[in-house]
């Protein structure tokens, strides 16, 4: 295995709500190698975005990272001061967001928004920055970069905006790209284009990508490894083939089961009953226990650990049932 590009260790992020701190991300650890696409999946509110924002240092003011390390090329980002973080953001780690239309400043021409970061992180003249902007736009498959540079975001379609966002993220050639649901707001045909583009970039620049999504289809197509989150915790981690072929955690099983598969011809779907618990009223034991059809007493009482379940250590799972019997549920 190559050395790790990003390593998140025991990350714990909390929010202040009504004067009490609630934990949105708890004891999350994972790593990404250069050129790897790691999928982070889970239902809405499970802490995917908070994890990524923790890495970027862009958390809201009512939050704190109370534990853990975030190592980027071995450097702990949590120890960086504001200025240091600003140098890293955009230059070493870049991020693209779910809503491409809202993520671009509506009052600023694309050119300005693009060159802003380029000028900030490089010693470029305006001319050079413009050329660079032109180049990156071209590289993300925008047919008429000149026109686009002069446009305002609202004059572009969602797909175009997302390309611009990607161009912006790639403009300083970061080593790590965090994509927080980059295609959720887009149509399938456009999604296909964008996913293709990201794969291309990864292949060409050997960029590590953290791909956050709740679409298992996207994960299956893009990622090499997957981390499944539930209620702020990682419940399972596995190489993508293993995960889909043989999900271990009951939640992962439920998740995969409840997605309708094109061409499968099924008339009805198995589903997970109930819904994700609220952060402030978390169940005591295993967070999934109330929805789990296999839950036993211990599940309701004690939270299981995330443990390796295969020799190579590539698979991890957080479930009592597995721990006890040593085999799958």
């Amino acid at each position: 295995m190559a050395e790790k590009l990003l390593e998140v260790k025991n990350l714990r992020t909390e929010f202040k709500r009504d004067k009490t701190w609630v934990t949105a991300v708890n004891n999350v650890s994972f790593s990404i190698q250069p050129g790897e696409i790691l999928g982070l999946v889970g239902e809405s509110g499970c802490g995917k975005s908070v994890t990524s924002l923790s890495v970027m240092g862009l958390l809201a003011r009512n939050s704190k990272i109370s534990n853990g390390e975030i190592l980027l090329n071995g450097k702990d980002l949590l120890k960086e001061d504001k200025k240091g973080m600003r140098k890293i953001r955009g230059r070493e780690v870049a991020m693209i967001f779910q809503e491409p239309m809202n993520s671009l400043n509506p009052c600023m021409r694309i050119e300005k928004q693009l060159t802003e970061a380029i000028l900030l992180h490089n010693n470029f003249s305006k001319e050079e920055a413009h050329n660079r902007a032109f180049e990156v736009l071209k590289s993300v498959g925008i047919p008429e970069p000149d026109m686009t540079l002069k446009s305002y975001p609202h004059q572009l379609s969602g797909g175009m905006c997302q390309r611009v966002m990607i161009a912006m993220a790639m403009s300083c050639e970061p080593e790590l790209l965090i994509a927080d649901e980059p295609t959720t707001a887009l149509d399938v045909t456009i999604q296909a284009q964008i996913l293709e583009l990201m794969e291309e970039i990864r292949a060409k620049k050997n960029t590590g990508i953290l791909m956050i999504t709740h679409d298992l289809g996207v994960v299956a197509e893009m990622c090499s490894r997957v981390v499944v989150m539930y209620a702020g915790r990682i419940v399972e981690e596995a190489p993508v083939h293993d995960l889909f072929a043989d999900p271990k955690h009951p939640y992962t099983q439920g998740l995969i089961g409840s997605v309708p598969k094109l061409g499968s011809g099924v008339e009805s779907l198995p589903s997970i009953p109930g819904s994700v618990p609220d952060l402030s009223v978390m169940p005591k034991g295993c967070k999934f226990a109330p929805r789990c059809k296999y839950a036993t007493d211990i599940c309701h009482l004690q939270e299981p650990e995330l443990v390796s379940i295969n020799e190579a250590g590539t698979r991890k799972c957080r479930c009592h049932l597995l721990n006890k019997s040593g085999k799958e549920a």
Partner: protein
Amino acid sequence: MADKNTTSTINLAAAEELPKAQSKFKEFVKKFMKRKTAVISLAFIVFIILMAIIGPYVVPYDPQAPDYTAMMQGPSAAHIWGTNEYGQDVFSRLMVGTRLSLTCALTATIIGTALGVVLGLIAGFYGGIIDSLIMRCCDVLFAFPDILLAIAVVAIIGQGMVNVMIAVAVFTVPSFARIIRSATISVKQAPYVEVARSLGCSNMRILFVHIFPGTIQSMIVNFTMRVGTAILAASSLSFLGFGANVTEPDWGSMLSTGRNYLNTAPHMVLFPGILIFLTVLAFNLLGDGLRDTLDPKMN
């Protein structure tokens, strides 16, 4: 391990624990209580309203009784906020004046609000020509500086409390119409209004059951702020000589009369000024607090 529950694919959520059922009002109160400034403001306003009700029965002096032996005395043990040019007790007058000032401001704002809300709702809901008509009328009213509008109203119908009230109400209308209109338009676009139409609700039902409650928030918030404006407007009118100025005390006229004694008896301006300031402040802070409490984004 065996499945415990494999029978039904429709899995009923009935058993699921929801957070404790809470009436919206209780929740609102709970949230509101967290805003200290707003709570203090509310307490102050309640105190002022209380004074308006019981003031005349509890104040130390008859606010109307002149005492020519004690004219324009500074604050003392006998007269804690001093006396005015007739030797009347400033404190008593201010407390009793609460009634007139507050009634005036509140009534004016209520009338203005009621009219403005109805106009705003109609304009926003029906749109088109009705909207244009109402909004152009409001523009005409807007185009006249409000104090001048008030002067004109007072000039037409004469001077006195009621007329000041009408005057202030008149210039409350257009701003409310505008605010409620835009609130109506935004609520009108809410999917649940479309749902209501699809369910077959009549226009009236949609307007009053579905849209109107959605505008109440901006109504309440603006109401509290406008009350402050109304208090100030009434005192400004006094200053220009168009006030409620009758023998009964009210804050505005006390303040504007007091200005003539700024040098010799500053307390005559200071205390009404501070009281007006605090009351307007309280209403504005209350408005702010309400807005923040009612704004889902702020939580």
